[in-house]
């Protein structure tokens, strides 16, 4: 494996992480949109706030990670990507701004009317943002981003693969988040809500799977290079994604939320990795290889060192955060008196099982 390949893999680690963690985050917003009226949706919305409240900022740093790795390691490809896909990037950017800000605003709304306004903005931007990001992925995958940049400002990202990418992105986010929320409800003791959410996740998963199957056809005629890569190297990963997805649906039916969630994560990660493997060694499909796009060697080495630093600083921190939010205190509503008193006595952070 060459130095440029190593850096490309590290960049792709970010893509996979963002697809999973950012995906679950966006998907929660989609469920917020589908939660129903004030009365019917209140419990779900409260759980969504609790589930993603502590983690959403960290989840979105993965996007910054991807962008920074891209422009540092592959500056020409980054420039081509940004100049060609100006519109969807900008719209995704607006979505991210609106989503994060209104999510925080809703948490501290004084009235139901304000909470509704911010909630609608948060939820709809949660839908729009992954859609445009998926369209961007589709543009790259179908070879519509020219190496020299400034591809057509509209048609580059509105081909069949882009529509498919956008749709699949939203669906996978929704499916992922459904399994996450079902598991979170169960941990918080809301078994009835967990069952409701699990059922919805099952429906979302089935739709996602069906669209993913249809995707195969679209790729065959619209993204031939990627399709041929998927027939060969990527086939195992696609099979793995399908198997994990089916496993997840099977566990959802059985009410085993935590396992269903593992299945969903593996399914999403495998299909994203499959995409990467399928288009290797191209960075911009049909246009620019990883090696051609690579920047200065000293900088690539620097990036690997930075990655090493991150894995001993940011990664343990992230793991602690994820461990914490899986504790009962962090899943339930405001801490109970007993929990607070235990915290104040400073005895132990670990709750009894």
């Amino acid at each position, binding site marked *: 494996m060459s130095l440029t390949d190593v850096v490309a893999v590290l960049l792709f680690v970010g893509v996979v992480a963002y697809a999973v963690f950012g995906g679950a985050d966006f998907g929660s917003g989609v469920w917020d949109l589908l939660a129903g009226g*004030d009365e019917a*949706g*209140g419990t779900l*919305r409260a759980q969504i706030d609790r589930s993603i*409240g*502590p983690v959403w*900022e*960290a989840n*979105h*740093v993965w*996007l*910054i*990670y991807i*962008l*920074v790795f891209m*422009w*540092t390691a592959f*500056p020409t490809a*980054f420039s081509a990507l*940004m*100049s060609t896909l*100006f519109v969807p*990037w900008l719209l995704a*950017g607006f979505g*991210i*701004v609106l*989503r*994060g*800000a209104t999510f*925080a*605003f809703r948490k*501290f709304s*004084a009235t*139901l009317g*304000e*909470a509704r306004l*911010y909630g609608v903005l948060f939820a709809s931007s949660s839908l729009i943002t992954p859609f445009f990001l998926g369209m961007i992925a589709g543009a790259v995958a179908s070879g519509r981003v020219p190496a020299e940049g400034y591809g057509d400002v509209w048609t580059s990202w509105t081909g069949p693969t882009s529509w498919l990418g956008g749709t699949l992105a939203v669906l996978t986010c929704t499916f992922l988040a459904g399994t996450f929320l079902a598991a979170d409800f169960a941990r*918080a003791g809301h078994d009835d809500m967990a069952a409701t959410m699990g059922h919805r996740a099952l429906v979302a998963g089935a739709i996602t799977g069906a669209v993913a199957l249809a995707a195969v056809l679209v790729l065959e005629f619209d993204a031939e290079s990627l399709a041929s890569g998927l027939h060969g190297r990527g086939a195992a990963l696609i099979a793995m994604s399908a198997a994990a997805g089916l496993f997840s649906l099977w566990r959802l039916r059985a009410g085993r939320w935590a396992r269903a969630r593992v299945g969903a994560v593996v399914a999403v990660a495998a299909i994203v990795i499959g995409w990467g493997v399928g288009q290797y060694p191209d960075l911009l499909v049909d246009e620019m290889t990883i090696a051609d796009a690579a*920047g200065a060697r*000293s*900088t690539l080495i620097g990036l690997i060192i930075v990655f090493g*630093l991150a894995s001993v*600083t*940011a990664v343990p*921190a*992230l793991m602690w*955060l994820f461990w914490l939010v899986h504790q009962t205190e962090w899943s339930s*509503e*405001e*801490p*109970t*008196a*007993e*929990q607070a*008193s235990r*915290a*104040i006595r*400073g005895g*132990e*952070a670990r709750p009894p099982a």
Partner: protein
Amino acid sequence: MFGLLALDELIAARYQMALSLGFHIVLSCFGVAFPSMIYVVHRRGLTRGDEAALTLARKWSKVAAVLFAVGAVSGTILSFEMGLLWPGMMETFGDVIGIPFALEGIAFFVEAVFIGIYLFGWDRLPPKVHLRTLIPIIASGLFGTFCILAVNSWMNAPSGFRLTRDASGTLRATDVDPLAAIFNGALWPQFVHMFVATYLVTGFLAAAVYAVGIVRGRRDHAHRLGFVVPFAFATVAALVQPVIGHVAGMRLATDQPSKLAAMELAVETETNAPFIIGGVLIDGEVRGGIEIPGLGSLLTRASTDRAVPGLEEFPVEDRPPANVVHWSFQTMVASGFAMIAIALSFWWKRRRSDPFESVWLMRAAVVAGGLSLVALEAGWITTEVGRQPWIVYGVMRVDEAVTDNSGIWISLAAIVVIYTAMGVAAAKVLRSMARRWRESDVVDLPTPYGPPAPKPLGANPAPDRTSPNPTSEVLS
């Protein structure tokens, strides 16, 4: 005149970047400096059993949740804009300046993680552990500032590469040395200047909020504490800032002479150059303004024998808009000294009497809050507009870096609308939080997810199996 109104794409791109950065810079100040202030108050609450301090820290952490969220998203869009608006710079120099950005990514990760833990850790983590989760936030704020200023200072004093033009005439950076790019000549003074500014701005702004309450008669312990802690941070920052700013300015004669010429409104290169207070450059001549002979040379070159570079040294197309740079620079300096005067009069008054009884002093503190914003934006305009027409000083012009895409004014308009709405909404939310805290003793602000008085969401669905005797009194 109409040429300007027609907004050519470059101007639109510059305005969009200016607006995005000008908005984000305020929030990033809070992101960097506010955790330290929360730490002091929170720690006081724990170690001295000061309930009011603990409550204040709880409230501040909720305020921080709002400010940090807006800061995080407005920072994310900046990384989009680097590529969307300035692809020419990123294509040529992405690998030269990428490493500090990547390091900043680590800082952002750590910050985001521990902010999540701190905000949700109240009553969930053991108090000492909870307090300590602020330390990585403070450290990553420091390190993140370093990284971002490494990039910005590099744009002012580029180093760590060799410039070539390839066959197609495109600029290429070769022999890239990322460490040399990070540790460019302008790094340390610019980094320290901005880092201190974060404490200055956050301190004066936070204190101003409590000063308003004090003027309105709320002189309780919480208000005094809420004023004094940020104000103390800001005072120290305000006192050291002119020294650091001076050191940063001294570098300009060698690093960026055209910026210095514009700041000083110097037309001709001359020794014993005057320091011009005010004044406008019209048709190559300085009109108005008070000239103090020799002071310009003395301040910027440490000797009246040394020359301050004048604008005439540079071709017309290489000159920054001198009036904007000069006035923003002097506005920053004037605001800085005004803030020092206000800060010192507070501490002076405090030696003899209760400064919170003095309405004019508290009003002055409110003014200091506004001045800190003015100084921040003016200083930033000085350094950014002063670098024009270069995006990378002496190496690449903004018109070489800007996107060839058209319709940038549409995205500018969208940004104006979104940021205005976001700013107004953030202000409304913060004010409503403050109002609700004034009206009741409860710190928690439950979210109205449903109609009033539904099935209580707060009813704990998971009956606690571990303790038969919940001790509710500890919560009160």
